[in-house]
């Protein structure tokens, strides 16, 4: 992910972009969300204008840019201070309320305003001419305001809304966001929810908590939600432990969303994909798979993890660390580590012997029980599991069977309820629109089979 060729990836928590990194572009306050990569030729199309994304390289995440049209075409300009936007006006505002014009508690109202499309005196040609002369977006907006016959009659709130609407068209703003579990999940849930199985961000957060995902965990995952779950788990592991994506049959599920996270090589090397049959059939001491996939390289341990962790690993483990952690220095390949390599035979044997420390299944279109039945034996005793489904019934059936067959305790089927509020003086209320469902979770703890 942006390592080696394509740009050096610094500290995975870097707050500044680098060449080749993955970014999430928020256009006009959430109207449009675009995932992009800051490669040299990268560009963004807004309306009918195409802007290069080069100005974004080396800027802090959270920076705001404005599209300016100059004689040479459109380009993105960093907005240095937020003086131009009016804080408190649109911040936290319900997106639906930004578009409707009725507000209470103001002296002026809109009774004298006639909507006949004749209020604006500037024509489209006038505006184009201004642009050709190098007028900035803000200047165009000022011109529109001064040429509007109805502007003065509007309420203060309406005036702001008018200005905002013109800004979006003539000086669109682009906010540079860091791709993170939260921002990626929200973007997908808003725009392409089916690609992530309708898994909402609060439900995803619950999966991570209920399965107790944290550093040094070995997490077994069935990810049929595009990779958002795998990415979220890997983020929490921070380069320790493993997230093993498993699948029935021979074809792994796509986990492309993982590529958007800007993971370092360490974290990528912790994301592996292995078929359930390989995991289940591995025996202690048997060499079932050929060792083609990974060259073990214990010596490179120290270069990739902090010195603290390294000294701990070498003193407390009796045996050398059985799983390879560094593939990035392997000479034959020029590419950086891709997430989703097959797990090494040593790793598989280790997991068979010790069990995984948690199990998370997000297979919103599959039968929950058959997955659970097959994979639960791989989970260590007294370890937690969390199953996500978009439907309630499969989880209810699954829970019932786990109870009757005495395979788990602390079983609970839950649904997370999330509501957002607009908080503004005299205008505080929940958002008008709300997500009806983020899916269901069955959680529990595996118990010792007698």
């Amino acid at each position: 992910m942006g390592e080696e060729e394509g740009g050096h990836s610094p500290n995975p928590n870097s707050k500044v972009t680098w060449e080749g990194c993955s970014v999430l572009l928020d256009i006009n306050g959430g109207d449009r969300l675009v995932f992009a990569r800051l490669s040299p030729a990268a560009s963004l199309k807004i309306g009918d204008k195409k802007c290069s994304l080069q100005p974004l390289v080396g800027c802090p995440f959270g920076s705001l840019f404005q599209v300016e049209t100059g004689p040479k075409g459109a380009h993105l300009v960093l907005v240095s201070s937020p003086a131009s936007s009016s804080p408190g006006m649109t911040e936290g505002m319900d997106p639906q309320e930004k578009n409707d014009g009725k507000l209470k508690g103001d002296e002026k109202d809109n009774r004298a305003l006639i909507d006949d499309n004749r209020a604006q005196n500037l024509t489209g040609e006038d505006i184009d001419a201004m642009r050709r002369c190098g007028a900035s977006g803000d200047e165009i907006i000022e011109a529109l305001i001064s040429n509007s016959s109805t502007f003065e009659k509007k309420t203060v709130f309406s005036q702001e809304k008018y200005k905002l609407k013109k800004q979006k068209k003539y000086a669109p703003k682009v906010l540079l966001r860091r791709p993170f579990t939260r921002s990626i999940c929200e973007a997908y849930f808003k725009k392409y929810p089916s690609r992530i199985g309708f898994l909402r961000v609060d439900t995803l957060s619950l999966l991570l908590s209920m399965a107790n995902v944290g550093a040094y965990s070995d997490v077994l995952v069935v990810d049929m939600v595009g990779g958002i779950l795998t990415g979220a788990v890997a983020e929490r592991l921070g380069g320790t432990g493993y997230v093993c994506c498993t699948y029935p049959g021979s074809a792994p599920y796509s986990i492309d969303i993982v590529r958007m996270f800007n993971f370092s090589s360490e974290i990528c090397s912790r994301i592996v994909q292995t078929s359930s049959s390989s995991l289940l059939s591995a025996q202690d001491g048997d060499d079932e798979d050929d060792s083609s996939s990974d060259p073990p390289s214990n010596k490179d341990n120290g270069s990739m993890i902090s010195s603290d962790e390294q000294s701990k690993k070498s003193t407390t483990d009796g045996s050398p660390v059985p799983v390879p952690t560094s593939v990035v220095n392997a000479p034959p390949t020029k590419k950086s580590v891709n997430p989703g390599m097959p797990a090494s035979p040593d790793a598989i044997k280790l997991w068979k012997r010790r069990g995984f420390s948690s199990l998370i299944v997000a297979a919103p279109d599959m039968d929950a029980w058959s997955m659970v039945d097959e994979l639960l034996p791989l989970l260590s005793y007294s370890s937690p599991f969390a199953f996500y489904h978009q439907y309630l019934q499969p989880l209810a059936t699954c829970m019932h069977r786990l109870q009757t067959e005495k395979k788990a305790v602390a079983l609970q089927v839950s649904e997370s309820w999330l509501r957002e509020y607009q908080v503004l003086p005299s205008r505080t209320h929940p958002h008008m629109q709300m997500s009806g469902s983020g899916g269901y979770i069955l959680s529990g703890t595996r118990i010792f089979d007698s």
Partner: protein
Amino acid sequence: MLSADQEKQNSFQRRICEGDLVIVYERHDAMKPVTVRAGSELQNRFGVFKHSDWIGMPFGCKVLSNKGSHRTQILYIADISFVVSFLEVVPGCVVLESGTGSGSLTTSLARAVAPFGHVYTFDFHEQRAASAREDFERNGLTRFITVSVRDTQGEGFPEEFCGKADSVFLDLPQPWLAVPSSGKMLKPDGVLCSFSPCIEQVQRSCEALTTNFTDVRTFEVLLRTYEVRDVKFGSLGGDGSGGAVRKPPCKRKNRPSSDEENNGSMERSTSTVMAKPCPETRGHTGFLTFARLRCS
């Protein structure tokens, strides 16, 4: 337990030892933490249980049913998990928190920043800080948590953390007083979260946030749980039983029932597993307000 030491991690081989903290579970809402000591006993209405019987047993094993009445944090897990995600806490992060309260969020934050990060938590009350410190020691998280006594509303966070915090969490009666200081502590684009039960507090906090923060969003999150039962519906036709007969799964095998068979199987063509929301549910915990520090 959080540990790089593979011997201490949970696994098929791990056995209960003297000194281990175990959770004794009876029902989904009845659990009790117990420190295992040979020679000690657990007493409840089901009898007396010797800890020494547990030593050497695998974790996750069943002993005869025990009961506790400890109300767990399950009700708040929705808030905690949402906060950890929205604060974008990952290994290596530095997180500031005030107040510490029960330490339940602190624990989750510590787990999320481990092994490379740290949580600095501040509480107004000396006693609460002390008991939180004890809890963290018991959970083996002291390495990642520093507890201090401080009046953050009056004094803000310590200067030494300026520009060092990735995230800040506030659970204070008047969080707007701590907002300016939080702004100084956070790295640009760092995330702040304030938890307040009352909407008036939220309004004042949001007002205070507009100066230096952007992306201000306020949420409520609640967990709705479902109960699952094996239900046999009666019909209007002539079997006379009428109404739904609920059969709780597995526990009462010996209870006589009109169509109970010897094998105790619950899978009958006449009954179905049904889920319905639990009648009692939490109405409100608090509002969660998130904001990002503006890049200047």
